[in-house]
């Protein structure tokens, strides 16, 4: 799968730490790290909604489809493939 999570870039733009985001959306730091490093296999709409609400962005700002990127870290499901 070549869906890449660009959460770190958005967080940098918003000058927000992962811990602060976790507190705001009610997700543990461990789970946010799994998402950020691309080890997650799926993301719930409710999680995506909470992230977009707190980061004031669109889903497309945190998730991008990259045809070239099949095995790099930062791709959802890449760790399982």
């Amino acid at each position, binding site marked *: 799968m070549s869906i890449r999570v660009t959460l770190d870039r958005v967080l940098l733009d918003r000058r927000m730490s992962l811990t602060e985001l976790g507190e705001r959306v009610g*997700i543990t730091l461990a*789970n*946010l790290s*799994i*998402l950020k490093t691309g*080890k*997650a*296999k*799926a*993301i*719930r709409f409710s*999680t995506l909604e909470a992230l977009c609400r707190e980061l004031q962005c669109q889903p497309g700002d945190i998730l991008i489809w990259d045809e070239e990127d099949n095995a790099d870290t930062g791709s959802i499901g890449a760790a*399982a493939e």
Partner: protein
Amino acid sequence: MLMRALGQGSLSSVLKILVDAAWVAACAALGFIWLIAAISLVAQLAGGELKAGVLGEISIHGAGNLVSWTVVGSIVCLGVMAISSLLRGVFETLVAGDPFVPENAVRLRKISMALAGLELARLFVGPVINLLMHDGGELTLRFATNFVVWGAVLVLIVLSQVFDEGARLREDQKMTI
């Protein structure tokens, strides 16, 4: 009131104790078989035959009978020990509350193979040893299969695939944020 299936104090924790008891009983039976075999060997070397009356009559006469009795008995005991230790692993995950792990699928597959192996051994090993070591007396070969065992083998294979799929779904769920 129905007992819980998972966790401490559940039905699984009770069954785990029964499985442990089965393992100990199989160990004891294996020791008993070898003891009887040794006594029988001594009796046959002295020109007699063994007739014992423990839990029904055991009568061992002739080398073929002795070898088949010992080999089949040992295989059955070792099979029961292997199956009970595999079942113990399954019940441990049930007691821990997370049975859908890939290891359980492997364990169930191994149990099905052990069960099939035991049934094949029961069917063929005894008669074949008797045939090979036949010393001229009356020879009776029985190949009566037990369809309940083969049904259990099939059910275990299907269950192992269910656990495979369950473990995959569990892993997906764990990694869903």
